[in-house]
């Protein structure tokens, strides 16, 4: 099975490097401050997965509170899995420095942090969660998931690793800048995490940080803002790098309309990050000024907080923050979904063994989606006092933006038709993405109409809507991507049987968690309630769902243990992957060994002769014709 050439090349990075004295690199240069986009991609990947795990655990603590309000949290039960998984990973490390060691230690550290949080007397007197602490958990869960987990994984890891390979580039256009982006992200993450230790705990004004609440919130909010400034800076540097790389470093013959859809998705995403993030950076600076320099950008005059007149001069506007925040945050949600769609498109084409249906319309739809995403933001603000004209404008743009998503989904669905579908783990996750994103996207429609949003705004319907798109949507796509590219990165295949257990378990749990949220939302249960709505009369009939959802979430955790074990088991013992393991057409698989050449990616500069998905071309010898196969 294993292609001898690829194994030899794989060996290159591992062994031959040290012995061939020409470029002997020290450990730091090679693994920590590397300029190689592949190493940086892996760094992003590991870091963001650990953050995902942490965001996941914060959520599990919230779910305890929602299911059993006022009951002491069993701290050990939340920390123990970390201990177990951390130790398993450490065991794989055979106590030698390396990836296993780092990740194992990081997981143990997270476990300690969780235990510390759950037993912290200030936040959890007697193990019972204070409302403020619930709010911290919610805000940090949202922030960590979005800014430290999913975006760095989808863009920083997948984009960084795969995109240059797919366009036949030796590296990113600015390798040093790439390294800096990673480290700035890392610092931002550390600042965010450390905010749990400041007096008053981490930020507790929601991931949206609406003032005046956030202006007068405890110190954690300052840490949140500083962390955000780092994360934004990192994203900006990264996006410049991505755009320049895609425009400048495409291999010979790789015209824009021959780019794999994944690259297109990253391209549009990079523009969103580049142009939407700065306003939030500006807003962050203004909020920092409010908090540290006593200004009143977001504070109107005459605020009375807990009976005391606020000393600020006032004259500011709380809604200004909302505009600046959502100017970023709406494009941001497409940042969460576009790379996911890119991954899905690659995997579907590969596993149906046929070209994507409507490649052009996919590309145009993605670009249009990106463009429109800048002018729909105020659909998050319908209930801030909008008149008819402006609300009509924003609901119209919102309805318009749903069309490209419908087009993308339709094209992907129709792509299945006529295929010869292989159901491997990657494909299962990719396929599940379609209906799950479907539910998430469709539930966006009643939110996008301002009149129905009156009933649904700020309810669990919103929570259900976006979790369907980000969790069984994006997270599934990321899982799919991990199953698909893991062989490329490591030279080994993930265990298929464990992969299927992971898939079916996650698929069922996701729906057990999130479908009830839609039901609760329609019944009028508000979000961000630390008791899960147990004080609401109208919530009465749907309250029992809280426990279901929580059990679903914990069961979900069990299936993730399978995943983590699979990752580390396969890394050590997995079956070796062939060079073009999936018999794919794109350059990442067809033009470079597995894993790719350590510096420069390609032994020879590839040249491209055809479109990205030439599968099952009539009359061709194999059922795939790589892009770099000469005519």
């Amino acid at each position, binding site marked *: 099975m294993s292609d001898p050439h690829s194994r030899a090349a794989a060996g290159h990075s591992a062994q031959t490097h040290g012995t061939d004295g020409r470029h002997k690199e020290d450990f730091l240069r090679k693994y920590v401050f590397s300029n190689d986009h592949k190493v940086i991609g892996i760094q992003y990947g590991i870091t963001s997965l650990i953050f995902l795990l942490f965001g996941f655990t914060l959520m599990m603590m919230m779910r305890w509170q929602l299911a059993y*309000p*006022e009951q*002491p949290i*069993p701290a050990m039960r939340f920390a123990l899995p970390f201990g177990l998984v951390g130790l398993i990973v450490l065991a794989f490390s055979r106590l030698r420095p390396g990836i296993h060691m780092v990740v194992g230690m990081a997981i143990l550290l997270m476990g300690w942090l969780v235990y510390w949080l759950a037993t912290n*007397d200030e936040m959890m*007197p*007697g*193990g019972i969660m204070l*409302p403020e602490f619930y*709010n911290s958990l919610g805000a940090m869960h949202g922030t960590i998931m979005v800014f430290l987990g999913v975006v760095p994984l989808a863009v920083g890891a997948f984009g960084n690793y795969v995109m240059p390979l797919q366009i036949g580039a030796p590296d990113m256009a600015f390798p040093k800048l790439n390294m800096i982006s990673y480290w700035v992200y890392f610092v931002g993450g550390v600042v965010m995490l450390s905010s749990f230790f400041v007096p008053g705990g981490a930020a507790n004004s929601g991931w949206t*940080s609406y*003032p*005046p*609440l956030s202006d007068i919130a405890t110190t954690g909010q300052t840490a949140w803002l500083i962390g955000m400034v780092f994360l934004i800076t990192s994203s900006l540097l990264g996006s410049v790098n991505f755009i320049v790389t895609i425009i400048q470093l495409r291999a010979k013959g790789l015209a824009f309309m021959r780019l794999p859809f994944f690259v297109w998705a990253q391209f549009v995403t990079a523009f969103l990050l580049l142009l939407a993030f700065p306003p939030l950076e500006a807003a962050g600076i203004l909020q920092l000024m409010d908090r540290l320099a006593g200004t009143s950008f977001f504070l*109107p005059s005459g605020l009375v907080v807990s009976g005391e007149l606020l000393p600020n001069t006032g004259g500011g506007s*709380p*809604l200004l923050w909302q505009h600046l925040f959502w100017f970023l945050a709406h494009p941001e949600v497409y940042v969460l979904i576009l790379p996911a769609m890119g991954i899905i498109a690659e995997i579907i084409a590969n596993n*149906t063994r*046929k*070209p994507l249906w409507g490649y052009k319309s996919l590309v145009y739809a993605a670009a249009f989606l990106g463009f429109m995403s800048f002018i729909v933001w105020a659909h998050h603000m319908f*209930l801030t006092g909008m008149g*008819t004209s402006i609300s009509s404008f924003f*609901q*119209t743009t919102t*309805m318009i933006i*749903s*069309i490209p998503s419908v087009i993308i989904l*339709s094209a992907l*669905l*129709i792509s*299945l*038709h006529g*295929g*010869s*579908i*292989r*159901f491997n783990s990657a494909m299962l996750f990719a396929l599940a993405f379609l*209906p799950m994103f*479907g539910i998430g996207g469709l539930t966006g*429609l*009643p939110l996008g*109409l301002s*009149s129905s949003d009156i*009933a649904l705004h700020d309810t669990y319907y919103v929570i259900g809507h976006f979790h369907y798109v980000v969790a069984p949507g994006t997270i599934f796509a990321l899982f799919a991507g991990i199953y698909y590219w893991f062989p490329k990165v490591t030279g080994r295949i993930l265990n298929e049987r464990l992969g299927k257990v992971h898939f079916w378990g996650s698929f069922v749990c996701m729906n057990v968690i999130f479908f009830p949220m839609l039901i609760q939302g329609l019944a009028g249960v*508000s979000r*961000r*309630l*630390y008791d899960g709505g*147990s*004080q*609401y*009369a*109208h919530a*009465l*009939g*749907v309250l029992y769902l809280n*426990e279901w959802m929580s059990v679903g979430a914990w069961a979900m955790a069990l299936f993730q243990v399978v995943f983590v074990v699979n990752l580390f088991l396969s890394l050590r013992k997995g079956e070796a992957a062939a060079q073009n393991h999936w018999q794919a057409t794109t350059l990442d698989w067809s033009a470079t060994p597995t894993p790719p050449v350590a510096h420069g990616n390609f032994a020879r500069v590839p040249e491209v002769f055809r479109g990205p998905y030439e599968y*099952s*071309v009539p009359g061709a010898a194999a*059922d795939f014709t790589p892009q770099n196969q000469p005519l």
Partner: protein
Amino acid sequence: MEKYLGLPPDGSAHGAQIDSLIGLVHWLMFALFVGWGIYFVITLVRFRNSKQKSANYHGVRNHVSTYIEAGVIVVEAVLLVIFSIPIWSERVDAFPSEHGSTVVRIVAEQFAWNIHYPGSDGVFGKTSLALVGTDNPLGLDRTDPAAVDDITTINQLNLPLGKPVIIHLTSKDVIHSLNLTAFRVKQDAVPGLNIPVWFVPTKTSAEIRGEMSSLFSLEEAVSSLTTLSLPSVEDIVPAQDAGREGWLLTADVADAEGSTILSAGDELTADNVNLLVGAGVATVRARIAANLERYVSTENYADAGGAVLLPMHETLTEEAVTGLINAGISGVKARLKSMTDPWVLNETLGAKDGSTIASTGEYLTEEII
């Protein structure tokens, strides 16, 4: 469709419009999802590689999907132009005249709604920041002639039936969300802005409550009651920790000579902790007494001898719980009170950031104050 969505009871004149829009959108969603879902499943089965050995390079050749997309555009346009925009416009442009309407001011703060009625003269008295205090949260200037007959309440909104209500909404501190679920009213209270909202209540709270109980099976709610387990609340507390307000001793504590210095039920205040530390006591048995009164027992509890310690439907009190602990009972089945008494207004009105507001207090009485 609305019937199947489990929307809460609707007690307002305009609620039906909103509900029917929600229903219509869900038809669209349902059709798209089911349509594509069936297609999806059929294709997966039909084109699995065990059956279809090789793929077809061209795949689907027709452009049916374009028509579907066009159809979606048309339906969305209809929902937008015929339903959503007109409904919205009626909510925000077509305010009824203040004559013939009940006009109230609501000023939100953490954690209360301050409600201000103009009184019989229909004119709101002046308010001033300087006058704001605990006993006058609105800062109403009672020397103003218009203020003499003004009525202010906290968390209780009483409105007449069948007559438009105009609420002028604002906030004193942070952004809150006024959410009258059963009246399909939701509006952010933004400090610095005065936002008007209007609706016509058509049902009393008693009627709505009635609908709710027929809508939701109480059985179900009762079967999901929480269990408040006592042993896990009990804890060993190192006495040298600072004072632990809210913690109650579960056993008497004696000093070295054997004389009791604190008895079961005493609270671990900072002073008491000092006392303990002074007497050289390192640990005590204590338990937390957080918000016991919010729970109601759902079973009868008796001691070994059969004497009733805590009957069903009784509020959990300190004595009752202490009695249970002393009798060696390890847990109580209890539930949050608000479940039988759903119309107690919630005092934790979260913020918009954390947006929540309880909505439904005892507010609909027949006559206006």
